[in-house]
């Protein structure tokens, strides 16, 4: 078998030859890239000593937006729910995510399609996205939000606009986006009203003026040119920078973007944190990272590398029921996956709208398969478990706050990860590119 022309590559070429177009799909990069799995945590020994018992508490409180906002976002845990649009997700899924975030004292985020009423009602702390498409952007929703996030790009497709295929542009989605029903929506990849760093600065000021400087302004970038994008965002006045690594999920994007653009979350996290330090704003501008975060270990490592919080997208959907064999009525939905040409555990078919578990769909019959109450409970359990794992690791490092984790608590398993995270290779004091 040829490595260059493997059976998968042959199938992909045949598919392109058939369609004359490129593959669109959901979720994140499938290829293996250096990740948080390539780091290990150096827990405490004689000195420092680990925390003990229940008396020595480990704090998870997280404050975002302390730079300019009168009312920063205060969260109980450093794990937030990433922006996923109503349109790519069903109203029930958005409601469940909002409720789970409220149950665990964290925030959720709107997406490329405006703020669904279910979402505002169910979310205690809601971040409102301002995207290039501006679908459904409404100053009243902006004023009702707890923070606003200007999205410059997503890790899955930095430089590309979002896609929503016609099957999902149903009456209510089309109404919210002001589009004709059933068209394959292609969104702009650039904001309509500003370009360049100076334009961003004025845009940020406009959003602040419209909200009386009350709520924080986040800027989200797809991790590609991280150092310069972070610098520009800081200089433009952002309160919080959200960096979404290349493993980050999507509701629908071209596979060529998902697999071939951007840099891994691991590298992006360190680069972004270093840039904030270089600009001497690490205590002023908060860093949120996302892209492939799955476990408390990932959270602890991201925080140790300099993030203030993480966002989860795909993992929250999996907790909600994505890729599960049964739905909330208890029915086996394996046939639904087969209809999409896949099986539970391998599905990335969010773009089709035929989600067998009622999450990434606008079909009422499919959406009924998700019970928002049960879904919210599962996502809340998952978020609690992540927070618990994070504190377990921080406590083992002798830290009384998860935010006290630092790069001294990390070593790398591979030379690549050591170079990207700028931490020593395990068992050595060697940091490639930093020490000899």
């Amino acid at each position, binding site marked *: 078998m040829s490595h260059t022309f493997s059976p998968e590559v042959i199938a992909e070429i045949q598919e392109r030859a058939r*369609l*004359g*177009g490129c593959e*669109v799909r959901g979720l994140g990069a499938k290829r293996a890239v250096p990740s948080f799995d390539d780091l290990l945590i150096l827990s405490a020994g004689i000195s420092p000593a680990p925390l003990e018992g229940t008396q020595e508490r480990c704090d998870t409180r997280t404050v975002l937006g302390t730079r300019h906002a009168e009312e920063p976002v205060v969260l109980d845990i450093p794990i937030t729910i990433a922006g996923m649009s109503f349109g790519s997700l069903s109203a029930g899924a958005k409601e469940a995510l909002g409720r789970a975030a409220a149950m665990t004292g964290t925030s959720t985020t709107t997406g490329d399609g405006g703020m669904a009423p279910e979402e505002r009602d169910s979310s205690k702390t809601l971040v409102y996205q301002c995207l290039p*498409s*501006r679908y459904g*952007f*409404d*100053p*009243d929703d*902006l*004023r009702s939000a707890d923070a606003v996030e200007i999205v410059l790009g997503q890790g899955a497709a930095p430089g590309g606009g979002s*896609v929503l*295929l*016609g099957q999902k542009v149903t009456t209510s989605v089309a109404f919210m*986006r*002001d*589009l*004709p029903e059933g*068209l*394959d929506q*292609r969104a*702009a990849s650039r904001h*309509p*009203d*500003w370009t360049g760093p100076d*334009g961003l600065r*004025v*845009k940020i*000021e*406009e959003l602040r*003026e*419209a*909200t*009386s*400087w009350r709520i924080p302004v986040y800027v989200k970038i797809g991790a590609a040119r991280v150092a310069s994008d972070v610098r520009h965002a800081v200089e433009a006045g952002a309160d919080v920078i959200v960096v979404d690594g290349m493993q980050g999920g999507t509701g629908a994007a071209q596979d060529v973007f998902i697999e071939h653009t951007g840099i891994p979350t691991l590298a992006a996290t360190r680069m972004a944190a270093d840039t904030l330090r270089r600009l001497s704003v690490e205590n002023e501008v908060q860093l949120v990272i996302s892209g492939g975060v799955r476990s408390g270990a990932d959270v602890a490592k991201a925080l140790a590398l300099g993030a203030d919080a993480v966002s989860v997208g795909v993992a929250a959907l999996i907790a909600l029921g994505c890729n599960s064999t049964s739905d909330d009525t208890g029915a086996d939905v394996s046939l639904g996956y087969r209809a999409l040409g896949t099986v539970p555990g391998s599905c990335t078919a969010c773009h089709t709208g035929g989600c067998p578990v009622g999450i990434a769909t606008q079909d009422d019959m499919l959406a009924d398969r998700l019970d928002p109450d049960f879904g919210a409970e599962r996502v809340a359990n998952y978020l609690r478990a992540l927070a618990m794992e994070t504190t377990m690791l921080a406590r083992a490092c002798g830290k009384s706050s998860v935010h006290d984790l630092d790069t001294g608590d990390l070593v790398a398993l591979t030379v690549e990860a050591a170079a990207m995270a700028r931490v020593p290779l395990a068992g050595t004091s060697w940091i490639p590119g930093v020490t000899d």
Partner: protein
Amino acid sequence: MTSLPRQSDQRAGRQGDPPAAEVTLDAAALSTREINRSLQALPYGRAVVTNPDGRHNLAVGLDAPVRVEIDGPAGFYAGGLGKQAHITVNGPAGCGVGENLMSGDVHVRGSAGRSAAASARGGVVVVDGGCSSRAGISLKGATLAIGGDAGALCGLLAQSGVILIGGDAGPCLGDSLYEAVLYVGGKIAGLGADAVVEEITQHDVTFVKILAEGCGFDHLSPADVTKVVSTRRLYNMQNHDHGNY
């Protein structure tokens, strides 16, 4: 169809409101924040912002039937994110004038920079002079009336609403247009991908006549406008060629 601009004598305050005193805000002495805070606090009545000197973000986020006059050149986003208010700029306006307008109107008594009325969802933006590139980009239901010429890519990705261009239109007019309708009084340098000229009907002529009159554009002949709409060929992904997608 979108609303037409109201006559100026209907614009001040709500019917039956007691006449509010006119507030004067001197931009030379006040910060943008102070100016907007004062404007946002007005429930009705009139305000004049003097010495704007190209200041960005003036009269942003208003949500009351107030009349605001910016007495001189305004910077970016004049009247942006607004509802109900009636804003006049006595001079040119910068980029993104009337950006994301929801209702009310913004009248520029001069020319406007890039992206006028970007993504505006309701209300009317009137520019007496010309507009730079991308006027009416991503328009979502508002009306944009340009007395003079429009630069390149006017109506780019415009989803719904109306753009009237009294003068000439630049290259790539209506590129990637959705359901918005464009009327051009002068010449068109070139159409963008998916834009096409459509025959005008009596309904179009009447509509343009009322709109032009409401805006005070007496230099254009409604019966002679060119109407541009979408071919809707890019509505399905299999129709996209690699250059357009």
